[in-house]
């Protein structure tokens, strides 16, 4: 067993793939990945993908921006140089807070949006210069590919997996041997 077999089962419809995945998972097959031109709604729970935690990260980044804005403006306007504007000097943070609301909001959004976008690029491994890994160029057009690995499904033989895939309405089946 030096080499590992990867199956790329190609479908021409997202619902057929979803249905096929449902049947395969019910039989105990592990679907490694799915490549599709657009998000297939309802597929994630079937193939056992957990919900992304990017939302939580965005919230934390937003809080960072909020804190930074408040601390920064407090230092600049109240502590370091209490500017006297129209005879109304800035001595009290609480009384001046209202004027800081717009920028506090903007910085919260700025931090949440950009830090989340950067995190998204990093965890997705979509960074300029990266090489795409979709098995077939048609998966960004109108084909949907399900990836199965023999190593993830050790209780089935190569033949059994192939037979099961054949029953799910595929249009093409590709096998690859990788080390």
């Amino acid at each position: 067993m030096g080499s590992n077999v990867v199956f790329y089962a190609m479908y021409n419809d997202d619902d057929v793939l979803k249905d096929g995945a449902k049947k395969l998972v019910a039989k105990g097959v592990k679907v490694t990945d799915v490549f599709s031109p657009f998000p297939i709604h309802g597929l994630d729970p079937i193939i056992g993908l957990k919900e992304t935690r990017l939302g939580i990260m965005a919230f934390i980044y937003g809080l960072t921006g909020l804190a930074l804005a408040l601390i920064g403006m407090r230092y600049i306007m109240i502590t370091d140089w209490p500017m006297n504007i129209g005879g109304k000097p800035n001595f009290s943070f609480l009384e001046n807070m209202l004027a800081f609301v717009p920028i506090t909001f903007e910085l919260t959004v700025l931090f949440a949006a950009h830090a989340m976008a950067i995190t998204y690029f990093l965890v997705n491994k979509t960074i300029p210069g990266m090489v795409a890994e979709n098995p077939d160029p048609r998966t960004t057009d109108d084909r949907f590919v399900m990836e199965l690995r023999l190593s993830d499904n050790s209780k089935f033989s190569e033949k059994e997996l192939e037979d099961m895939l054949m029953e799910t309405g595929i249009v093409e089946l590709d096998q690859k041997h990788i080390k």
Partner: protein
Amino acid sequence: MHKEATIREPLVLGHKTFHEVTEDVCKPIEGKAPKTWYILFAIAAIIGVYGVGCILYLLGTGIGTWGLNKTINWAWDITNFVWWVGIGHAGTLISAVLLLFRQKWRMAINRSAEAMTIFAVFMAGLFPLIHMGRIWVAYWVMPLPNQFGSLWPNFNSPLLWDVFAISTYLSVSLVFWYIGLIPDFATIRDRAKKPVAKKIYGMLSFGWSGRAKQWSRFEMVSLILAGLATPLVFSVHSIVSFDFATSVIPGWHTTIFPPYFVAGAVFSGFAMVQTLMLVMRKAYNLEAYIHTKHIEYMNIVIMSTGSIVGIAYITELFISWYSGVEYEAYAFINRATGPYWWAYWAMMTCNVVSPQLMWFKKLRTSLTFTFLIAIVVNIGMWFERFVIIGTTLHRDYLPSSWSMFYPTHIDIGIFVGTIGLFFVFFLLFTRYFPVLALNEVKTILKSSGQSYKDGDAKTPAFSIEEQHLADVKMKPSQGGADENLKNDNN
């Protein structure tokens, strides 16, 4: 999965398959540009270059080259700034607010509307920058530690809020737009035959593979960015209105400004979207994706925001009388009957009267009429900003200082130049970028495409009914699949 009622008109006309969607959107990018594109590009570029020349002359000589004087210290510059920012608002509204409301018709127009937003905000940002006079010290607006006795910018000033608001808005819109573009660039990359194109789109697509996990993250990020951009879009124009509303100038000192500006921004933005979209759908043969229904939806937005703007104008008038402040009252009487009466009535006709015509279904579904009204609204909204800024300033408390504003050729050159530059950017966008969120459109093909609506779906392997039953059976319930079916009313 969300299913749309059959009585609603399909959002994608013709029995399109996934591949046809790709073909329709990628064709114009892969083929040769038509001659008209080159002609339009050349015209836009010439005007744009002239504008840049005027800007360079202004920077070299000074703000005195504008028609400003000591009474009218803000005129076309800030008028143009507010006009462009306002135009920018439609793109974010379409892509963010309509995403939160799950309005699927947005998918056909969000990409190009957002491109329009970004380019419009570029143009808007230019005006405050060049208005500084000494653009090389523009970085002084940033709170940077410095040697001038630690001189910080004033965080109580709405002008500084504006700096933060506009830059946040521009950069967040850019990121939102680009994240949506990545999968579509991947589609073009995988289709590209020429090695150079493959390389460039490969770079632009950041190595997108379309894995299930990537898509799941993509949807989450889009949703959160929409959630962040929604309050952002409202905050930006509110803050722009604070530039005026927090002053003590009669005519500016009104609390109605923020909502009124936001409504006006959406109003003018949609008018610009209509102007661009009506031409683009024709030039790129996208009539199946952006059809009369989309135009009608946008016209309804124009009509409702136009009505809000109309109410705001009338409220302003009423309050200026009701407040009993004679300076306030004079500011408004002067707008309507003073030397700039024509600007006021141009604004009233274009912004209050013309959108009301959209109540007639015949008119709001007529493409020629829509195009005409869109242009009228664009002009009207420019006049609105001029009325608010120029007409308010030209007669202040001291009659000996009253004056008029006459634009110089530099004023005109810069304004027209930004329109040229805007179209240069937009034409380049339509030439090299997917003008339609093609992969997003594919997701609504089954629920809102004509095949589904006509009931003769050919793409799905099993019918919608079967799909629905399967979905119902899947739902968790104590009673099992049969119990689920019993409780289902559809």
